[in-house]
C-alpha cells in the first residue's frame, strides 16, 4: 500500500483542492497539508526500500505478468522524494514575493496533479501505465504553462504540447509494437521475452522506445520544447518543472533500455553516446549565447541531460550509478538555480542580465547561495556536482572512451563560463540604473528558506557523499542492467 501512496496522496489532494475551488484559503491549507503528507509518505517509502529492498505491488492481486505492477526501487523512490521536496518548496515559495505564480484556483490542483503523474511514472513497472502517467503529467504541465494567458505563454504551451505529444505518441507506438511482438507489458516479463527476440526486430523496437524517451528527456536534437517554454513560467513552477519533467524521460530510459532490456543492441548505446555529446555541447553553447537567466539555465539543463545520457551510454553498472547520482544532483541544483534567478528578479527587477547588477553589494547572502549552487553545477569540489562528474568521467576513462571524457571536461569549462557570466553581470557589475535600490519591503523570507534547504542538501551530498554513493550503486544493481 505504501508504494501507491506517493501517487494517491497528490491525486486526492488535487481533487480536494479542485473541490475547494471557490475558497482560496481552504485550498492553500489543503495543498500544504497534502504536500507535507506526501513528503512524509515518500520518506517512509524510502526508508522501507533502504531497509527491506525493492517493494512490488500488483493491482487487484493478479499474478504477474498479468496485473499492473508498481515497483518502488531505489531510483524511483529517490526521485519521488525529490518531487515531494520540490513540491513543498514550490508551495513555500508561493508565500513570498519573489516571482510567485499568479494566484488562480487551478494552480494547486495542477501542481499536485503534475507531481502525481511524475511520481507514478517513476514508480510504475508497466509500459502502458507509463504512457498513461506521461499523459497525466503532460496535461498538468500544459495547464500550468497557460496559467498567465498571454500570447507568449500560449505560444510556449503550443510548442511544448506538439513536441511532447509526438514523443508520447511515439511511445504509444513502441508500446503497441512491443506488445504485438511479445504479448507482454510488464517490464520484467518484457525484458525476458525481448532478450529472446531476433536482433532485427529488437533494434527498431527498442530504438523507437529510446527515441520517445529522448524526446521526453530533451536530448539533442529533440530539445526544442524545453528552452521555448521554460522561460515563460514563474520561478517556483519553473523549479518544479526542471526537477521533474526531464527526469521522467531519464528514469524511463534507465528502467528500460539500460535496465530490463539489457543487453540492448550495442548500436543504441553508441548512438546514445553521440547524442549525449551533442546535447552537452549544444546546450552549453546555447547557454553561452543567451542573456536571460532562465534561458541560460534552460539550455544548461540540456547540457546536463547530456551528461546523464553519457553515463547511461557507458552501459555498465557503474555508469548507471553515475547517471542516477547525476540525475538526483541535477534535479536539486538546477531547481535551486532557477529559484535564485527568481530571487534576483525580485531584487533587481529583471531576468535579463544586461538590465541588472550590483547584487553582490546589496545582497551578499544571495550571492553566496548562488555561488554554491553554480559551483556545484560546474563540478567544483566539495560540492555535489563534483562527485557526479567525477563518477561519469572516471567511468569513461575506465572504458577507454577518452573522447567522451574529454568533451565532458571541456563542457565543464564552458559551464563555468556562463555561470561566471551570471556572476559578473548580476552580482559584480554596478546596476545600470544608478537610482536602483533593492526593494526593502518585499517578502522574501519563505523564498530564502526554500532555497537554503536545497543548498544544504547539495552541501551535505558534497561533503558526505558515501551514503549517496552506496545508495546509487544499490539503485544501479536493482535496475538489473549494465555490465557489473
Amino acid at each position, binding site marked *: 500500500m505504501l508504494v501507491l501512496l506517493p501517487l494517491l496522496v497528490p491525486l486526492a489532494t488535487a481533487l480536494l483542492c479542485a473541490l475547494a475551488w471557490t475558497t482560496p484559503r481552504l485550498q492553500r491549507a489543503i495543498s500544504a497539508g497534502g504536500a507535507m503528507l506526501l513528503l512524509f509518505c515518500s520518506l517512509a517509502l524510502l526508508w522501507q526500500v533502504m531497509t527491506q529492498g525493492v517493494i512490488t505491488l500488483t493491482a487487484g492481486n493478479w499474478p504477474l505478468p498479468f496485473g499492473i505492477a508498481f515497483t518502488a526501487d531505489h531510483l524511483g523512490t529517490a526521485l519521488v522524494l525529490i518531487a515531494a521536496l520540490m513540491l513543498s518548496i514550490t508551495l513555500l515559495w508561493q508565500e513570498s514575493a519573489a516571482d510567485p505564480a499568479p494566484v488562480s484556483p487551478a494552480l494547486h490542483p495542477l501542481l499536485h496533479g503534475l507531481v502525481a503523474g511524475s511520481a507514478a511514472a517513476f514508480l510504475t513497472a508497466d509500459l*502502458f501505465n507509463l*504512457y*498513461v502517467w506521461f*499523459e497525466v503529467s*503532460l*496535461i498538468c504541465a*500544459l495547464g500550468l504553462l*497557460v496559467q498567465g*494567458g498571454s*500570447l*507568449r*505563454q*500560449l*505560444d*510556449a*504551451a*503550443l*510548442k511544448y*504540447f*506538439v513536441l511532447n*505529444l*509526438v514523443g508520447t*505518441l511515439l511511445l*504509444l*507506438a513502441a*508500446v*503497441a*509494437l512491443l*506488445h*504485438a511482438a511479445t504479448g507482454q507489458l510488464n517490464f520484467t516479463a518484457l525484458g525476458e521475452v525481448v532478450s529472446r527476440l531476433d536482433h532485427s526486430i529488437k533494434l527498431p523496437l527498442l530504438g523507437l522506445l529510446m527515441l520517445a524517451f529522448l524526446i521526453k528527456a530533451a536530448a539533442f536534437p529533440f530539445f526544442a520544447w524545453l528552452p*521555448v*517554454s521554460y*522561460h*515563460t513560467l514563474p520561478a517556483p513552477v519553473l523549479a518544479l518543472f526542471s526537477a521533474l519533467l526531464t527526469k521522467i524521460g531519464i528514469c524511463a530510459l534507465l528502467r528500460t533500455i539500460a535496465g530490463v532490456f539489457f543487453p540492448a543492441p550495442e548500436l543504441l548505446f553508441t548512438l546514445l553516446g553521440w547524442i549525449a555529446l551533442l546535447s552537452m555541447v549544444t546546450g552549453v553553447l546555447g547557454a553561452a*549565447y*543567451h*542573456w*536571460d537567466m532562465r*534561458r541560460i539555465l534552460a539550455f544548461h539543463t540540456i547540457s546536463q541531460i547530456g551528461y546523464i545520457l553519457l553515463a547511461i551510454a557507458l552501459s555498465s553498472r557503474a555508469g548507471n550509478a553515475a547517471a542516477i547520482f547525476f540525475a538526483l544532483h541535477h534535479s536539486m541544483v538546477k531547481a535551486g538555480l532557477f529559484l535564485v534567478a527568481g530571487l534576483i528578479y525580485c531584487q533587481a*527587477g*529583471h*531576468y*535579463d542580465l*544586461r*538590465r541588472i547588477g550590483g547584487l553582490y553589494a546589496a545582497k551578499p547572502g544571495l550571492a553566496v547561495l548562488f555561488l554554491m549552487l553554480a559551483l556545484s553545477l560546474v563540478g567544483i569540489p566539495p560540492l555535489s556536482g563534483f562527485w557526479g562528474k567525477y563518477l561519469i568521467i572516471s567511468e569513461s576513462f575506465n572504458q577507454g572512451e577518452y573522447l567522451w571524457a574529454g568533451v565532458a571536461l571541456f563542457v565543464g569549462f564552458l559551464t563555468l563560463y556562463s555561470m561566471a557570466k551570471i556572476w559578473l553581470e548580476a552580482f559584480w557589475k554596478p546596476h545600470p540604473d544608478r537610482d536602483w535600490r533593492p526593494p526593502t519591503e518585499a517578502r522574501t523570507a519563505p523564498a530564502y528558506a526554500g532555497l537554503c534547504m536545497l543548498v544544504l542538501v547539495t552541501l551535505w551530498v558534497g561533503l558526505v557523499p558515501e551514503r549517496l554513493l552506496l545508495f546509487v550503486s544499490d539503485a544501479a544493481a536493482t535496475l538489473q542492467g549494465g555490465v557489473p
Partner: protein
Amino acid sequence: MIWAVALALGTVIAAGTYLLLSRDLLRCLIGLVLFGNGINLLLFTSGRLTSSLPPIIDAGDTVLAATANPLPQALVLTAIVISFALMCFSLVLALQIIQLAGSDDVARLRASEPPSPDGIKPALEEPS
C-alpha cells in the same frame, strides 16, 4: 486482411505527418490528431486481427474460446479517451492563439522567441 489494415494504418500516419508539417496551425493540429489515431489503430491491431466474437467465457466453461483479444481493446479505449481530451485542449489553445496573434501561420508565431535585432545578439528582454 492484415495487409489491408497495415496499408490503411500507414496511410493515416503518413497523412497525419504531412499535415503536421503544415504552416497552418489548425491543419497542424488535425495532423497531430490523425497521427494519434493512426497509432491508436496500431495499438488496436497489436492483439492481432482474429475473431470478432466478444471475449466472454460461457457458463460452464473455464477457458476462453477463440474470441477477440480483450487487452488491446482496453488499452486503446484508454488511449482514445486521452487523445480526445488532448485534442479538445489543443483546439481551444489554438483558437486563443489565433485570436491573440491575429494569424494562423505557424512560421510567424514567434511570441515566445522574439527575433534578434541584429542577428547576432539576443533581443533585450522587455520588462514584464
